[in-house]
């Protein structure tokens, strides 16, 4: 361990001395303190949410770049300047050198992460405690932003079956009308059918109740639940949104059970129809007794738009049911853990590429790798494919994602800024599928290459 720590210390010193690192640290400090310190030009709850989101996301961005750069720099710098020659001719295995440098990068970034996040946490709390905020807003901020709430999503519609049914119907119509249907037409029908199925599921027609069923909620819940959603008027674009009205009803389970199934009485959540702005998130309380003994909660919404226009509630816009389970500090700490996993991953990627490439090439390839992961994830999340090539791209993206880390998976900043709990199960999933199964094999390949490569050929004069 003595030689491990010797390398650890020297690598840390070397990194701290690099100019790139120093510039990044200055930017990090400015970013961490500047955004939460801005003068709030809007409602304090929104401001805190935005300040949280941008400051933590910015820190992740800076530290992510830093982790990649330092990972590459730690491995390559003394290899190219031949200082490593004097190290590896001493009785220390190259794997120890490699791992010690990886740990040094992780340690430095963890230190910066903790400092930056402590600054943000302190600034947010300071603004909340010392700002001139009305009592009602203060309570709302505490319930909606500075909290960790577990998220429950409703059962998803079966888009595949629905779209297949629609596509079959379209195909039958086309054939009945005597059209010559080829493969391209079938692809087109499938795409259109999927769009229609999703649109149909998201649409709330005027005065027709739409129902969502939530499962596995805690039956013994005592405090009210929170309903979070966002509706769009007429279409799912942000442009030309206006106020609209709807009413939410919660199914209150009856005491008696009919035929083994719980019966529900639907009661409105407000005494009058709710007036709200299209395209913005809204939260509303649901009584805790709406949860059935088996953990089921049923919600209904009725569109009462003054112009009888359809409303749209996409799967990503809710409705979600939120239950507070911890305070802001603990939720923030969980987000810090996710950010650290991100740093570990990027550090591992940087080290792996630097093990066989020069510094500049390794940095370039690391960013290329990450871009590939981001694009693949984006492509794989698409729900429609206009043609065969796109479908091929989808499967290619799925294949790439077997071994490439998509950075989107590490984003916990929006959860925390929305007051949603960063679940340990989710963190575990990230650790398993992104860190252990994707980044670490790459890191291990890098270690093998580093152990076996010729060092004296990589000398920059």
């Amino acid at each position, binding site marked *: 361990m003595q030689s491990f720590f*010797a390398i650890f210390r020297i690598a840390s010193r070397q990194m701290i001395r690099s100019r790139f690192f120093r510039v990044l640290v200055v930017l990090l400090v400015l970013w961490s303190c500047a955004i939460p310190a801005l003068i709030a030009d809007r409602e304090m709850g929104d401001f805190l949410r935005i300040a949280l989101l941008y400051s933590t996301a910015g820190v992740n961005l800076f530290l992510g770049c830093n982790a990649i750069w330092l990972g590459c720099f730690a491995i390559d710098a003394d290899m190219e300047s031949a200082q490593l*020659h*004097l190290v590896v*001719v001493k*009785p220390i295995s190259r794997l120890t050198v490699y791992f010690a440098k990886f740990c040094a990068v992780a340690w430095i970034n963890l230190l910066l992460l903790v400092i930056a996040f402590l600054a943000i946490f302190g600034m947010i709390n300071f603004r909340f405690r010392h700002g001139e905020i009305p009592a009602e807003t203060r309570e709302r901020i505490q319930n909606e932003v500075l909290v960790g709430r577990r998220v429950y999503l409703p059962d998803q519609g079966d888009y595949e079956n629905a779209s297949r049914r629609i596509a079959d119907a379209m195909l039958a119509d086309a054939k009945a009308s005597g059209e010559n249907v080829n493969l391209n037409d079938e692809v087109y029908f499938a795409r259109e059918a999927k769009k229609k199925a999703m649109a149909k599921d998201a649409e709330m027609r005027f005065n027709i109740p739409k129902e969502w069923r939530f499962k596995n909620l805690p039956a013994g819940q005592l405090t009210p639940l929170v309903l979070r959603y966002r509706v769009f008027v007429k279409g799912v674009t942000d442009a030309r949104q206006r106020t609209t009205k709807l009413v939410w009803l919660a199914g209150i389970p009856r005491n008696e059970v009919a035929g083994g199934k719980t019966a529900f009485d639907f009661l409105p959540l407000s005494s009058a129809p709710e007036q709200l702005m299209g395209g913005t998130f809204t939260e509303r309380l649901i009584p805790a007794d709406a949860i059935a003994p088996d953990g089921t909660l049923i919600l209904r919404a009725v569109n009462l738009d003054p112009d009888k226009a359809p409303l749209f509630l996409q799967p990503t816009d809710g409705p979600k049911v939120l239950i507070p389970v911890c305070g802001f500090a603990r939720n923030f700490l969980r987000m810090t853990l996710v950010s650290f996993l991100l740093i570990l991953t990027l550090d591992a990627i940087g080290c792996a590429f630097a093990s066989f490439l020069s510094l500049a090439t390794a940095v370039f390839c690391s960013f290329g790798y990450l871009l590939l992961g981001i694009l693949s994830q984006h492509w794989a999340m698409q729900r429609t494919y206009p043609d065969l090539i796109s479908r091929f791209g989808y499967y290619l993206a799925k294949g790439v994602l077997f071994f490439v880390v998509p950075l989107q998976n590490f984003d916990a900043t929006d959860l925390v800024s929305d007051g949603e709990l960063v679940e340990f199960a989710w963190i575990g999933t990230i650790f398993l599928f992104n860190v252990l199964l994707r980044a670490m094999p790459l890191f291990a390949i890098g270690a093998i290459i580093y152990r076996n490569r010729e060092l004296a*050929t990589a000398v920059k004069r």
Partner: protein
Amino acid sequence: MTSAQNAAPVAVVRGLGKTFADFWGRARVKAVDGIDFEIRHGEVFALLGPNGSGKSTTVKLILGLLYPTRGDITVFGKSPRAVETKQEIGYLPEESYLYPYLTARETLDFYGSLFHLSAPERKSRIDQLLEMVGLSHARDRKVGEFSKGMARRIGIAQAMINDPDFLILDEPTSGLDPIGCREVKDLILTLKKRGKTILVTSHLLSDVEDISDRVVILYGGKIRSQGKLEDLLTVGDQTRVTFTTPDQSAQRKLENALHNGFPQEKIIIDHPRRTLEEYFLDVVKQAKAENVSTSGAAAGGKIADYLNTPKSKDEILQSLLPQENISVPSAPDTAPEQKEVANEEKLRSLTEEKSVGIPPKATAEDEEINKQKLADAEARLDQLLGGK
């Protein structure tokens, strides 16, 4: 057979070849091409050759920094890449590959840590090594601020931190002033006396000549010549006679006598010259005596104690044995200037006895002819001088 010849080889190189390839694996440069040699325990072995002859590549292959394209290398009977092999190796690279932001003390402490030396042991060795290489006054200065010579000295110190059995010195005197060169050469000879094995590469042939037992001369990646220095350098068919000339007339007499005595031989008479190194060292010695100050590296102190102290029972036993049992008779076992003085004394005594030096390692037939020639010459010289 000398003890060095009897000892097990420290490094064995067999059919070693190294070809550098481009990105596509196409062979571009054949740096080393099928070389064979052994480095035996306790000898100073030199690799010589012009630039690009494959010296540094060979050293890097022995260190496991490069891998052979063909052939084998073993160091202490193991692969040069084995971690345990490196416990006994000290390496001074051709250029200063030190961390510029570390001080001299931190540098040695860092490399000492890699050998798992305890903190008190490291401290003790660092103090001794800094004293030895004359950098005690610069112990807390950053290595990046050092002159080339100072960096070389700290490089030598780091190579010695583990008291290595096998020391590889790539151009050890490069960048050093003549005093530093002399100190390094003295250090090498001291280490050799302790039974250390030393591999040296150098362009400065006079340095190599002073210290090495055996040399390999490389050219174009191949061995052009190898063997013991004495065997390679002695000109067997020529004889030199040296003695003091009290005045011009005596010299003239001698010249005439030789010409008359050996009318068929081409005889050259000149004054022996001191080497520039000797002259320079005298000048500096005088300057020191006059207390002239300098901001560079001070002349080194005594050899670090731990380098002088035998490590094992065997070494203690060896140090107690008679000198001829542990030293190589053909190699110098004293400092070069002492050796030179001794040689001069020997030559003087020979001339006083009017005898001529015989080159070593002559064959029996040669010896017979030489004896005859010597007897004839002595007789004729006596006759000529006596006649005057």
